[in-house]
């Protein structure tokens, strides 16, 4: 009978018969309206839902949004809190909370806090006493013209515990990383910084907030943070590419006190991300130590050689001196043995002496003797250095030592070496209150003398027009300090680095031994635990300074 279908007007008799039956209410689906089938379906649905809610792991409350009165509660909540439905019926949710949390709940129900964004943790009573932390989410809904809120509470004891544990472990690791004296810096493949320890942050002046966040949007670039290690980025990228750990040694860089050296170890992070970490260690002191050791090593071997040589020279020298002494004695008419020998030979001693005097032989012999004595003094000095004795240390004023050294220098007029202290303008600057220094006076005299001679020779060699030397004494970093500055040619860095090396000289063969400044080094550094320093640049003169500790009296030199 459906008009919609294009069935022929005369339907088959059976169809019409069955349609008639249906009209009469005899069709299979003919029934008076009944809500029961749907009701039953809904009841079953409700039952399933109830079971679902009751077996949910979360605590579920339905409350009146404005009053907080509980209108429904699931079994999990009753079980967890050890309450019966009757006890809970009509109580107010905020009475279950810890004191002071009511306002937070009210705010939550007013929608002031978005629980999807930030979880709010409340304390709910626990069956058998005590409370447990519960993270609460709420959703307010209108139902039957009332404002109801579904409050879901989740026991987060375990989670908080594991969070704390995680935070503790993280903090522990972080503090290990931060406590490392090395600089640690991690980067991703675009060379944005992903990790930085406290030492590195302090060193580079970059805050932890500048480290790349998870979104990866605001990471600083390595090249901005550590511009003074230009070799670093390339090495990091290579490590990320091939996954190999690599070490870069003695990279020059910037330190708190100027130039510094760094060793860098780069290793890949195998965390699924493309990252690499560089451990940067400041090895400046080690590098300096190595240099000093090398220097010392060289000097020690030179010292031993010199001592051996001095010893070997000493014996023949003693023979020469003794011989000269004997020759002079045996010319003397005062000795009975000389007179007896002359008488036996028929020689008039006076005549012979007149001849000798006429030919200036005695003065020649005395000259030999003086030279021998001087050679002997040099040898004994060398021996003294090599013994590194501080036997003769005394408390002296540095300025007095400078006075003596200047005196010696002026007397060391040496035509051959073409320098003359009388042409050099000497300026003295002495700190007025400088206390005395514990040192071997003759050695420090020698040091200053050597410095003066070195300056004078340099200026003479360069033909400095108005040569001038300034000698300063004073304080420097808690040490007594003496500095000899000239206005000579200065020196390039290549020279400056090697001035204290034994046998290093810029002078022509025969003009210098190359020992002057290394002796300075020995005396100051080795014998007095002081320091030496050079300040110079080409055309700007040179200043060589020595520093001596003030507390030298407390004990003998460790190397003594």
């Amino acid at each position, binding site marked *: *009978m*459906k*008009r*919609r279908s294009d069935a022929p*007007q005369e339907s088959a008799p059976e169809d*019409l018969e069955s*349609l*008639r039956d*249906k*009209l*009469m*209410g*005899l*069709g*299979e*689906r*003919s*029934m*008076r*309206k*009944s*809500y029961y089938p*749907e009701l039953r379906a809904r009841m079953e649905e409700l039952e399933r839902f109830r079971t679902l809610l009751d077996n949910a792991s979360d605590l579920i409350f339905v409350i009146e949004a404005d009053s907080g009165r509980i209108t429904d509660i699931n079994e999990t909540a009753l079980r967890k809190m050890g309450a019966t439905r009757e006890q809970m019926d009509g109580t107010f949710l905020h009475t279950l909370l810890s004191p002071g949390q009511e306002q937070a709940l009210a705010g939550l129900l007013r929608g002031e806090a978005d629980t999807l964004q930030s979880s709010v943790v409340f304390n709910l009573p626990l069956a058998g006493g005590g409370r447990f932390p519960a993270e609460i989410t709420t959703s307010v809904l209108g139902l039957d013209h009332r404002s109801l809120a579904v409050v879901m509470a989740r026991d987060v004891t375990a989670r908080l515990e594991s969070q704390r544990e995680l935070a503790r472990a993280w903090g522990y690791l972080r503090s290990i990383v931060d406590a490392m004296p090395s600089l640690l810096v991690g980067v991703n493949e675009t060379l944005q910084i992903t990790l930085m320890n406290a030492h590195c942050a302090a060193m580079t002046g970059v805050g932890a907030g500048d480290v790349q966040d998870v979104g990866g949007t605001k990471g600083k670039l390595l090249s901005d943070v550590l511009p003074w290690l230009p070799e670093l980025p390339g090495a990091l990228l290579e490590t990320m590419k091939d996954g190999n750990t690599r070490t870069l040694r003695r990279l020059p860089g910037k330190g708190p006190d100027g130039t510094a050296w760094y060793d860098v170890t780069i290793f890949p992070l195998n965390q699924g991300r493309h990252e690499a970490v560089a451990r940067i260690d400041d090895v400046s002191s080690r590098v300096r130590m190595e240099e000093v050791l090398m220097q010392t090593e060289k000097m020690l071997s030179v010292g031993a050689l010199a001592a051996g040589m001095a010893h070997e020279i000493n014996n023949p020298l003693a023979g020469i001196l003794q011989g000269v002494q004997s020759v002079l004695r045996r010319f003397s008419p005062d000795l009975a043995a000389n007179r007896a020998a002359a008488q036996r030979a028929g020689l008039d001693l006076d005549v012979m002496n007149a001849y000798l005097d006429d030919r200036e032989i005695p003065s020649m012999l005395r000259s030999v003797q003086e030279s021998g004595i001087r050679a002997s003094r040099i040898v004994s000095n060398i021996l003294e250095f090599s013994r590194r004795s501080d036997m003769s240390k005394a408390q002296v004023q540095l300025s007095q030592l400078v006075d003596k050294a200047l005196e010696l220098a002026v007397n060391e007029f040496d035509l051959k070496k073409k320098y003359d202290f009388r042409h050099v303008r000497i300026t003295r600057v002495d700190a007025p209150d400088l206390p005395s220094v514990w040192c071997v006076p003759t050695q420090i005299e020698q040091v200053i003398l050597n410095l003066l001679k070195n300056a004078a020779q340099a200026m003479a060699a360069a033909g400095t027009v108005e040569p001038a030397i300034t000698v300063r004494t004073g304080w420097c970093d808690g040490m007594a300090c003496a500095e000899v500055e000239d206005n000579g040619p200065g020196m390039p860095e290549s020279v400056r680095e090697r001035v204290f090396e034994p046998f290093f000289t810029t002078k022509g063969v025969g003009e210098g031994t190359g020992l002057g400044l290394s002796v300075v080094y020995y005396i100051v550094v080795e014998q007095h635990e002081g320091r030496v320093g050079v300040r110079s640049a080409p055309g700007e003169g040179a200043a060589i300074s020595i520093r001596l500790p003030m507390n030298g009296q407390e004990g003998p030199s460790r190397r003594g």
Partner: protein
Amino acid sequence: MADGQELGLRKFVAPEFVFGEGASRLAARHAINLGARRPMLVTDAGLINSGWSRMLEEELRSAGLECVLFSDITANPKDHEVMAGEELYRCEGCDALVALGGGSVLDCAKGIGVVNACGGHITQYEGVDTIHSPLPPMVCIPTTSGSSADVSQFAIITDTTRKVKIALVSKMLVPDVSLLDPIPTTTMSAALTAETGVDALTHAIEAYVSNANSPVTDMFALESMRLVHRWLVHAVRDPMHIKARSQMCLASLDAGLAFSNAILGAVHGMAHSLGGSLDLPHGECNAILLGPVIAFNFPSAPRRYRKVAKALGCAVEGLPDDEVLDMLLGAVKMLRAEVNLNRNLGELGVTRADIPRLAGLAMQDPCILTNPRKPAQADLEAIYEAAL
């Protein structure tokens, strides 16, 4: 066969109903008992004007029910009116239907319930037993005595796209409660009283001669005929005649109980066709077609028509069938004349050219299936012709 005694399976479905003066005052109580909190009061402009709607609305409100009013309904209710009503029902969060009005209002309320329960468009539910979910609770207060939509399993809606009336047939459409009160019917005009009264009579006659008749429906059908014969003229002539109004209410109830279960015949099939395509008043179409259809059907159920004639006051004892038919047709004609329903289809604007289409639509109407005589389309065309 319709005349015979052999009997197949028969079902009888009736709503819970309260009959009597003041029954309509029980609307709020029944709505509440059915679980209503926010009922939709479905009615039309006429009942708003007569004041019955406001009275009912106030009673519902004073009982604590938030009432939503829907009254955009015309005679021969249209599909879009149903859809608009359902949208309002849904948007307002209504949970029950209280229908106050004649057949159009009650059918529209049923349509709203169907769409609300089953979704989709009302025209999807054309046919028998196509409604799969129970409608919302529904309380009906008929204000005419004739449509019997308050007790029937039918809802007739106009499909405005195809310009046809579609029939929704399902026991689901039987209301939960009907409150049959003669008082609201007192404001009906004489014409409306006449139309609806003849409609009730047609329901009773068609149910009685239907090939789906049963002893139970027969009782209601015959009693309804007797009541219409006895009281309709009084009700038409004297609107405030409570006794007449009351008896016409009863006549309508009886006819409704009969035809809802025994179904109808060719008169309704052909009247639905007229109403759907030309929007003609249902009761008047029935009045016009009743005589010609009786003449056509008579040979198939002479004994039953004899009892119809008797119920309508004809002394037919011992008379031959053809005389019985003449007397019956005369009685129908006289009743029409007494209640002033004398127009024929031509006067309503139907032309001969309309007839083939009207007959074609009527052939597809389910009511034809229970007509005692199986018609061919030519038979229906002849009947329309006779009614012009």
